């Protein structure tokens, strides 16, 4: 009974935390849409901190869910749903997450910062690909500059994510289930 009760508490805690992360991702995404760094297509990537935390603290599927939800809700709020910006954001987010997962699994030597940097690069690459489909090669002219900027924002988001994940609330979500059973 105690085991079931503890498991329920764990599940409720997990859902609450993931929901909070999703809400935070949406708020950060909307907030950073008002900040411009002067180069078309370059953003701070604050919402990616949340995605990375979800990827490391929970798993790929939660991170994907939060990412897609973030893109949809942000686009709805900003009135850009199903326009070029929406597809750029969606493609960039999914591509970035897939690459981060790949790096995390295949190259365990890289920390969150390294994975975040690579994710950031592929995020902007995905966006440029969609922009190129819509507009021809106009946005491609800015790719070298956007590439360098994405490295900087990727490192920053990685460092922030790394420090936030030191909080106890993000620990042990991926610990094996048999350890809980053995305690009881």
């Amino acid at each position, binding site marked *: 009974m105690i085991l079931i009760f503890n498991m329920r508490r764990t599940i409720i805690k997990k859902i609450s935390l993931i929901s909070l992360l999703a809400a935070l991702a949406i708020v950060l995404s909307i907030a950073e*849409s*008002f900040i*411009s760094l*002067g*180069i*078309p*297509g370059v953003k701070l990537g604050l919402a990616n901190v949340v995605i990375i935390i979800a990827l490391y603290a929970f798993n790929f599927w939660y991170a994907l869910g939060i990412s897609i939800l973030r893109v949809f809700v942000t686009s709805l709020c900003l009135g850009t749903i199903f326009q*070029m*910006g929406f597809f750029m954001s969606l493609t960039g987010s999914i591509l970035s997450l897939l690459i981060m997962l790949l790096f995390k699994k295949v*190259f365990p*030597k*890289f*920390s969150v*910062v*390294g994975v975040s*940097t*690579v994710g950031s*690069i592929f995020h902007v690459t995905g966006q440029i690909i969609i*922009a190129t489909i*819509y*507009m*021809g090669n*106009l*946005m491609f*002219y*800015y790719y*070298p*500059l956007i*590439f*360098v900027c994405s*490295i900087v924002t990727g*490192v920053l988001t990685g460092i922030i994510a790394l420090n936030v994940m030191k909080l106890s609330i993000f620990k042990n979500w991926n610990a094996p289930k048999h350890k809980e059973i053995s305690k009881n």
Partner: protein
Amino acid sequence: MFKKYKADIILICSLIIVGLLSCIIYFNFYNSSNHLVANITDSNNTLTQIDLSIESDAEREIEVIGLHNDLKVGVKHNSIRVIYSSCPHQDCVKIGSVSTTNKPIVCLYNKVYIVLIDNSGGNDINI
């Protein structure tokens, strides 16, 4: 700490070097011709072509109505810039004056794109 993040540091430094080299190579590979033509498009159609080589050094203003709202574009001899745009971030304004063929001015919000073409072949028009 550096030992722990050695792989990350090597990766990031390599990427920065690749990125900076690309920027250096790309931004030095351009045409700064004396015969530039500005092509203003909405990605599918040419909205107008302005022969910048016959413009004077005094900037004149033209108005461009884009997808959502209007832009004010400043045109002078072999140079063009967006003076004002109604887009939220004004990225196209922050790009500033452009006098080379490798740097287009892009207003994603209003779908107005300005690209400079080298017309140093001295063509009166390009069809």
